[in-house]
Structures are given as structure tokens and as C-alpha cells.
């Protein structure tokens, strides 16, 4: 067992965490998505996709032998967002990445009025992730309307930094769709820990935080574990 697996096996002993989705469920649906994407003959040369997580996600998690599927760290990676959802008991929620975290989508569907963003994530979710055992009920919101802040209001919003990477100030549009007391959770925001290095101030990830801090009625918290998660609460 390598150091990462030892570390996470110890973390696993500390928590009482019921994963909404089993590791095998995740591998199965991810493999189905990868098979579909392979059929689209998408250009995966280095010049076309680099080492970008957005474009390699389903390749990484589809393999049962992948290191990412071997330890508790992957299963527990979305726990920070899930905790915030459970703490806040939202009536209305918005999610942008149901194909990446179908377990979270299930929880949000079960415990709140769910809205999903209209993107490739929704398409993949509807094709491969909904399953037969869950009754889904959700609205959709276009990215155009979301970026205009024209949706909601919501009590809980979960997005990825990738949703706003092209224009970091867009976090304000999402924040503006919150009710008072609502929480905006942004995942995958530390860019493999580069957010904590000397050049942090020149990255879009830093700009996202700066934009959120401009609101007088915001409180910003950051969980620096795993891929980094930022929480913006509307006071």
C-alpha cells in the first residue's frame, strides 16, 4: 500500500460517511460515458487537449485499476460540498456537474428542489447517470441565463471553477442568485495546489476569490484539502 492509500485508509477510519454512490457504480457509469465519448472521435492529441482534467476526467475514472479508484480519497473528494449541502438544508438548489458527481446530484434531488445547468454535463447525466432506481425531478437553467444571474433564487449552488474559469468575475452572477443565508460552493479550485504558490495572484482562481470578497454581505471560506473547495455565504 502506498503512502496515499495508507493516509486515506486512516481518514476512512475516522469518519462515518455513507457514500451516496458506490465506487463500482461510479466506475460503471464513467466507463459508459468514456465509451460514448470515444465514439465521437474527439481529437485527444496533446495540442488539442493538453493535460486538462476537464477533457481527461472520464478516461481517468473509467479504468478500474486507476490509482484514483483505489483509495478512499477519491470517494471522499466531494465530501466538503456534500457537508455544506447537509448543513444548510436548502429548499432550492443548483448544480452544474451531475455527470461528475451523480451521488451529490441524487442527494440534492432527494432533499431539495433541484435545478441543473444546461451543459455537456447535463447531456451525459441524462444519457448515462440517471439509472432506473431513482425518480428524478429537476428544472434546467441555461449557462446564458446563469451568467446573467437570471435564475433562482437558490439556497445552495454547487459549481466547479471550470464553469467560470473563462471569466472569473462570473462568480458574482452565481452569488447574486443566492437567497440570504445561501451558500455558493466552488469545487476544484486550487489548480493542483498552484493556488497557494507565489504566482497565485495572477491566476483566475485567485480572481474568483477577489470578486466574491467584493460583496459586503459575503463570507468566504476555503477548504484547502484535495482539489480545494471554496464556500461563499450570502449574509
Amino acid at each position: 500500500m502506498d503512502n496515499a492509500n495508507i493516509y486515506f485508509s486512516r481518514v476512512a477510519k475516522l469518519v462515518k460517511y455513507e457514500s451516496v454512490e458506490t465506487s463500482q457504480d461510479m466506475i460503471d457509469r464513467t466507463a459508459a460515458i468514456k465509451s460514448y465519448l470515444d465514439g465521437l472521435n474527439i481529437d485527444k492529441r496533446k495540442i488539442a487537449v493538453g493535460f486538462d482534467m476537464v477533457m481527461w476526467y472520464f478516461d481517468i475514472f473509467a479504468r478500474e485499476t486507476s490509482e484514483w479508484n483505489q483509495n478512499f480519497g477519491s470517494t471522499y473528494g466531494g465530501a466538503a460540498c456534500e457537508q455544506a449541502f447537509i448543513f444548510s438544508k436548502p429548499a432550492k438548489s443548483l448544480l452544474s456537474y451531475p455527470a461528475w458527481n451523480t451521488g451529490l446530484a441524487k442527494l440534492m434531488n432527494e432533499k431539495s428542489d433541484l435545478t441543473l445547468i444546461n451543459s455537456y454535463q447535463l447531456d451525459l447525466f441524462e444519457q448515462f447517470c440517471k439509472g432506473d432506481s431513482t425518480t428524478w425531478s429537476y428544472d434546467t437553467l441555461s449557462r446564458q441565463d446563469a451568467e446573467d444571474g437570471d435564475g433562482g433564487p437558490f439556497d445552495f449552488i454547487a459549481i466547479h471553477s471550470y464553469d467560470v474559469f473563462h471569466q472569473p468575475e462570473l462568480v458574482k452572477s452565481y452569488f447574486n442568485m443566492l437567497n440570504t443565508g445561501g451558500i455558493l460552493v466552488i469545487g476544484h479550485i486550487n489548480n493542483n495546489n498552484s493556488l497557494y504558490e507565489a504566482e497565485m495572484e495572477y491566476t483566475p482562481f485567485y480572481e474568483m476569490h477577489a470578486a466574491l470578497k467584493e460583496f459586503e454581505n459575503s463570507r468566504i471560506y476555503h477548504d484547502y484539502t484535495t482539489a480545494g473547495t471554496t464556500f461563499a455565504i450570502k449574509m
Partner: protein
Amino acid sequence: MSYNAELDLKYVESKLTYYIYMIGLNPDNLDTMTIDTLIEKARLFSLITSDTVQHRSYIKDRYADSNDQYLYKDEPAVAFLRNQRISIVANIRRFWYLRQLALGAMSRG
């Protein structure tokens, strides 16, 4: 409501168009462009990369030579330009990829 591929494609292409203008090309020719052309052009936006700037390991070296003309990775201007380059290349790649996904969805009918 279900996924709307037309609406998604409209969004993705509006963003891709923005970056194509930014690198000095005409987005009217999007259907005949290649990702190679876009990335090669975007890379000219700044020639500063991790490979082309010097690493400087020790602070004591920083002011050792007043005639030092090199750019170093930890200079703010270098960090700024390098991250601008990373962002523009990443955004073009992502929206190019997302366009392929939306077109794939539309082709399913």
C-alpha cells in the same frame, strides 16, 4: 426540461468566437479552422513559458548582478504573462472540446 444541445452550442460558440477574435483570426471561418491553428496562434500571445524563463533558486542570487538581463519565473510580470498564456490556451481547448460534444449531441437527433 431536458438537455438543449442547440442552446448549449450557441453558448459554447459565442465563447469560442471571443477567443478567436482575441488571437486575431476571423471566427466566420470556424468550420474550416483546426485546433492546431488556434493553439499555435494563441501561443504567440506570450512567449513566456516555464521552459523559456530561468529558474532562480536562491534569493541571494536575485540582486547579485545589476546587469542581469534575464527574466525569471518569480518576477511578477513573468508570472502574469505566463498565466495569461495558460488561460487563453486552456479556454480555447475547452471550448473547442465542448463544441465537439454539443455537435455530437445534435448529431444524435
